[in-house]
């Protein structure tokens, strides 16, 4: 073979192999975490590993729409993941355990299924204390039992209109323990049974109940609750809490089409997001009951489990905010 021909062949072969080999080398050396719609696979990989105390540097990319990344129960702010772009996030875990990372953007109907876990080892594993059971467990509440208030206010209860004569009688009902374990309707009943308040009208007692609920939260907590609601709940439950978020229609359609409804059409309505403006439901629900529904999620419905995501404080802030769909605190 003549030398020019040999050189030409080498040139062609090297160019073709370089065009294959160089990208493959960089590609294999740059592991990315891929975010996809849950129906298309969700996170890949969905299980990560880290060492306690050692920063975990992650490079994330989206293969379809805008997603977000955050780790549950961590203060680290979330990052947006744009389609085809690479975002970076660094998380450091103080203690070992299993953490949940999740999508923070309303990416689709199954957005809430976009979850993964981070297995954190090392550190002082013996020092990890087992968490106390949540209140709804301690109280033995049945989260799926009906909770309907049989007496309802004629108009929106206003905390500022609580009658002066009721103030002295409210002290016993204003503790956090009482507030969390009782529904507004139970509180209203307790107030009705209080002899000193026998002269007050039903409306006055509902205003007093609103006052008790207001006294168990703060403007900051309500603001935090509102932020969490907008970010995580409003897509299904609606900005006004009426169960008419942008995904509500799709959820209903998915419920109608799903095999979960084999027992009958009644089960299909389980796909309908809860309506927090429904006074009968909300005034019959205690904060502990709502805590349980948030932490556990709505088994078999589209309601996700937020236990691995929210801190205890965040859950109580969110619960407090949900009651603003019934009570006027202004």
């Amino acid at each position, binding site marked *: *073979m003549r030398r*020019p*021909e040999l050189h*030409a*062949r080498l*040139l*062609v072969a090297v*160019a*073709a192999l*370089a*065009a*294959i080999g160089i*990208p*493959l080398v*960089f*590609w294999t050396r*740059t592991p*990315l975490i891929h975010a996809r719609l849950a129906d298309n696979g969700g996170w890949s990989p969905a299980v990560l590993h880290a060492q306690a105390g050692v920063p975990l540097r992650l*490079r994330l*990319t*989206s*293969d*379809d729409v805008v997603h977000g990344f955050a780790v549950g129960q961590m203060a680290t702010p979330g990052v947006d993941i744009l*389609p*085809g*772009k*690479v975002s*970076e996030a660094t998380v450091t875990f103080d203690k070992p355990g299993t953490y949940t990372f999740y999508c923070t953007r309303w990416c689709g109907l199954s957005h809430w299924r976009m979850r993964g876990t981070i297995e954190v080892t090392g550190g002082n594993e013996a020092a990890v204390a087992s968490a106390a059971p949540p209140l709804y467990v301690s109280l033995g509440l049945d989260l799926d039992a009906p909770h309907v208030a049989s007496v309802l206010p004629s108009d929106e209860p206003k905390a500022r209109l609580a009658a002066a004569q009721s103030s002295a009688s409210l002290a016993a009902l204003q503790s956090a323990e009482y507030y969390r374990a009782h529904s507004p309707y139970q509180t209203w009943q307790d107030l009705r049974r209080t002899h000193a308040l026998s002269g007050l009208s039903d409306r006055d007692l509902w205003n007093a109940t609103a006052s008790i609920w207001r006294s168990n939260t703060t403007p900051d907590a309500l603001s935090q609750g509102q932020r969490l609601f907008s970010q995580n709940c409003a897509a299904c439950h609606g900005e006004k809490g009426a169960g008419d978020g942008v995904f509500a229609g799709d959820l209903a359609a998915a419920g109608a089409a799903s095999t979960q409804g084999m027992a009958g059409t009644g089960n299909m309505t389980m796909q309908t997001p809860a309506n927090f403006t429904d006074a009968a439901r909300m005034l019959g629900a205690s904060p502990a009951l709502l805590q349980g529904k948030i932490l556990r999620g709505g088994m078999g419905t589209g309601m996700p489990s937020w236990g691995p995501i929210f801190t205890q404080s965040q859950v109580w802030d969110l619960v407090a905010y949900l009651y603003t769909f019934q009570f006027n605190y202004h």
Partner: protein
Amino acid sequence: MSRLELTRNPPLVAALKSRYPQLVILVLMLAGYVFAIVAGLIGTPVGSSNFSIVFVWIAWWAVLILAAVPLLGRGWCAVCPIPLPGEWLQRGAVLGPSREKARGWNLRWPRPLRNIWLQSASFLLLALFSSVLLTTPLVTAVVLAGMVIAAIALSLVFERRAFCRYLCPVGGFIGVYSQAAPVELRIKDKPVCVACEGKPCYNGSARGYGCPWDVFPGGLTKNTYCGLCLECIRTCPHDNIAINLRPFAADLEGPSARLDEAFKAFVMLGSAMVYAAVLLGPWGALKDAAFQVGTRAWSIYAIAFLAFITVVLPSVFALCIPPFGRARAFRQRFSRLATALIPLGLMAWVAFSLSFVLNNATYVLAAISDPLSLGWNLLGASNLSWRPMLAFALAPAQTLALVGGVVWSAHITQHAAAEARVSPIPVTVYCLAVAVVLLWLLV
């Protein structure tokens, strides 16, 4: 008609005769082509950020339609890397002719298929899936790889560049539109060719290969099937091959009577109209139907697409042709007059591509900055946000292109109608109506 012979310039002739400049360009193109396949396979599935989609369907397409075809005709074919691997296997060499015997079966291409019907079919086949092809990197990678594999396979079975000449979906329309380009490869002196022994330009010699495009340069009157591969410049023992600058559309002054070429004109014109509606139009249901391959909506879209291009457009055009004489004569008149659609079709693609390319040009810089979607920022533009470019000039430029296309087609119609001995008015009105529809769709 006046011509300016570029090959009177000795340094240029030397550069064209040498295989090295072309080889270097081919190798660069091959590397880019292979890289585009790899990027399509391993890069992000997000089309607007994937190098293969952006590089092929925005950057390459812009260069091809807005510059290469209108100005150089088959200039792209001269540096296209697709036939390179197959020719290496077929010839047993990358550079000049080797002493090795040709490999493969080296069969002649079947006579019934020596036309561009298959190229029209392959283009339509891809066009049916264009919404997926233009947005899905994996599909683009598979199609790019498939074209190389098909070229290799045909090189091992048939002689010369059978894939380029008879099957390539791109080569077909480049050939038809190259007739409008101001560049041509022709012989200088016909008697020299007539007297030439052995016809090495067609049969090959120690200096080079016989025409890979299966064309005898001595008989060239049109650009359509000359791939500008430059082999005949190297093999001609009499230096009788010239590359000329000439007026635009010189080939179209003598309209073709071939039905396959006429059909190609309808395929391209109709495709430009459908693409303008699907890719740039405001109809979401139409976009969904074109994208959801395999669904009922897509089947309806596919049938409508094929019917519009192969039945509606030609049928309406046929109404513009006087029906006197025998069927064969009518077919020839039809084909000759369809030549008039070539300038309008080319300008329709220019107008469509202007919109497509200027609207998506920002993706090119971003994709080059991060070609594998690994978070690189080579040019500092990987996070460039999308914005249309030269938006103020788009509508005037598209209008100019389409109006120019109508005028140009009307001019060609005069020649074709005179040759076919019919009135040019109906075909001119047809071109005008098509241009109005395109203006409505694009501007």
